[in-house]
Every structure is written in structure tokens, then in C-alpha cells.
């Protein structure tokens, strides 16, 4: 079998196992009625917004500020997504609108 099949298959299994682990952990650790450690509670409470912020950076990591178009399409589209979402709080509108705008920006405006 080729690497084109094996590598993605292996990545999917690792991600699936880790995902299941996060869902199974509370049952494994606290199924016997034990108290949840304060440190675990705190991290579970505070970590999600930090992770999402890092994922936003992750999505934009390929943007090259030095070469044209200097990240303008990305930053304009992110700003529009944010404004649309603050305005209407509608996921489909914010994501759909922002993505369409980005496609127009890089295919037509900044091409």
C-alpha cells in the first residue's frame, strides 16, 4: 500500500484516539465519584479561548506580510467576518459572507 493511503490513515487514527480520550477521560477518572482536581477544572475553564486564539493564528500562519499582497485579503476578510458576526451573530452569514469575499479578493481584486 502506498504512503498516500498510510499516512493520512495513521493521522486520522491518532486524532480519533485523542478525541475519544478527551471524551472518555471524565468517565475513567471520576466515574467512581471522585472529586475533580481544582487544577483540571481551572484549565478546562480557561484553556478553550486561548486554544481558539492560537487556531486563528494557525489559520493565518501562511500569510506573507513581506510579499504582495501583504496579507491584505486575509486581514480584510477576517475584519468583515468579525463585523458581520458582531452585527448579526449568525454563523452561516459570517462564515459564508467572509469566505465569498475572500475568494473574490484573491481571485479578482488582488490577482
Amino acid at each position, binding site marked *: 500500500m502506498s504512503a498516500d493511503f498510510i499516512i493520512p490513515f495513521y493521522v486520522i487514527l491518532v486524532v480519533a484516539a485523542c478525541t475519544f480520550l478527551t471524551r472518555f477521560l471524565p468517565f475513567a477518572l471520576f466515574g467512581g465519584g471522585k472529586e475533580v482536581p481544582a487544577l483540571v477544572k481551572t484549565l478546562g475553564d480557561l484553556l478553550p479561548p486561548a*486554544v*481558539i486564539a492560537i487556531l486563528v*493564528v494557525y489559520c493565518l500562519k501562511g500569510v506573507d506580510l513581506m510579499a504582495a499582497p501583504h496579507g491584505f485579503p486575509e486581514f480584510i476578510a477576517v475584519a468583515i467576518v468579525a463585523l458581520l458576526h458582531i452585527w448579526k451573530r449568525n454563523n452561516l452569514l459570517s462564515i459564508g459572507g467572509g*469566505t465569498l469575499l475572500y475568494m473574490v479578493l484573491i481571485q479578482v481584486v488582488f490577482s
Partner: protein
Amino acid sequence: MSITKKKEAFKETLKYAFMQTLPVLFGYVFMGMAFGILLEKAGYNFIWAFFISLIIYAGSMQFVLIGMLGGGMGLLSMIVLTLSVQSRHIFYGLSFIEKFKAMGKWGWYMIFSLTDETYSLLCGMSIPKELNQKQVFFAVAALDQSYWIIGCTLGAVIGSFIGFDTTGIDFAMTALFVVIFIEQWYSYQSHLPALVGMVCGVASLVIFGAGAFILPALIASVCLLLVFKNSIKQGENQEVCQ
């Protein structure tokens, strides 16, 4: 119970669960389609989409996964990244330990399928007395996953037929995370965790480069959050459901 009565009860349960899951139906089918289209564009067909949505079944993590499929990320980075992105799930389960345990072997599927949306549905339902709670729980969880699988698979099929230029469609993932970021910004009393993540992410990107920034960024965030934990006002952040 006679067979006809059982059939009747099953129909009622399914009907109730379907009505409860309607909002998730639309959300999952559309987000699933976006995932399927991106996956197809990355070179993986609908069979991959079906397989991924069947065995991983996680919204944001599946989008992150697309970039990982080609290989190149180390095993440790993959594990830390997945555990961090999914860390919130640890706290969903806490509300359902007794209930899922009581479901026996079906409980295993409930644990596997406890996504953000299924969690909030299970928390919010007031199930009519004449219905069996365990069956309703299972039906809701299974319907939600079936919507997700349909959306993902359909998206990948549609993706292979799209005639117009789809360059830039992968921005949907960026937009998704910006939307989640804003939603969390509103729901958290303290904005410090979001800012810590942002600063660590950008700083790590500058220092370590695009290929290796995520692990240092996550570790730095965890350390900073633990340092600042006492000065962060904690309030109604995590919904507790009983």
C-alpha cells in the same frame, strides 16, 4: 411489551428526538459540507470524508486535521494539538457520568459522540415522562452524528463536481475560528485567556516559524494561564448542567 407497542414507542422516541435535533441538522449539514468541500480540495474523496466523520466526529478538529493529513507533523505535536483543541470535552462528560453509566454498552457510544451540540441538547431537554430517557439520549446522539456524516460526505461529493474556481474557499476554516473566538469573547467574563492565546500564538509564530509554532504556543499558554489563574475572574464561564 408487545411488538406493536414497542414499534409505536420507538416511533414516538424517534419523532421527539428528531424535533429536538432540528437546529443541529442545519448547522451540521452546512458545516459538514464545508468540511467535505475543503477535504476534497485537499485531495481526499468522499470515502475519506465518510470515514473521518464516522470515527473522529469533531467539528473544529476535523478542519485542523485537513492540514495534518499530508504528514509532516510529529506524533507528539499531533497528540498535544488534538488534546488541546478537544480539552473542553473533558468537562462535558462530567455532567453525564451517572446517566451514561446507567446506559450500559450504549453508554460507550454516548461518550464517543458527546460533541458541543449534542451536549447542549442533552442538557436542555425536558423529556416527556412517557418516553424512555435512555432511548431518547441515544436517538439524539445518533441523529446528530448521522447529520454530520451526511454533510461531510455530501460536501466531498459536491466538491468534486464544482466547476468554478474554488481558490480561497479554505478561508471558511479561518472564518469558523474567528466566529468561535467572538462567541467565546462574549461568553467569558475575562478576556485574558483569549489574549494570552493570541499573544503566545503570534510570538511563537515569529520565533519558531510556521512549521513548529503550535506546540510552544500551547505550552506557553498553559503556563501563563496557570500563573494568572488567580487574577482571572471566574464566573459563569462553564455551563454546568444537571
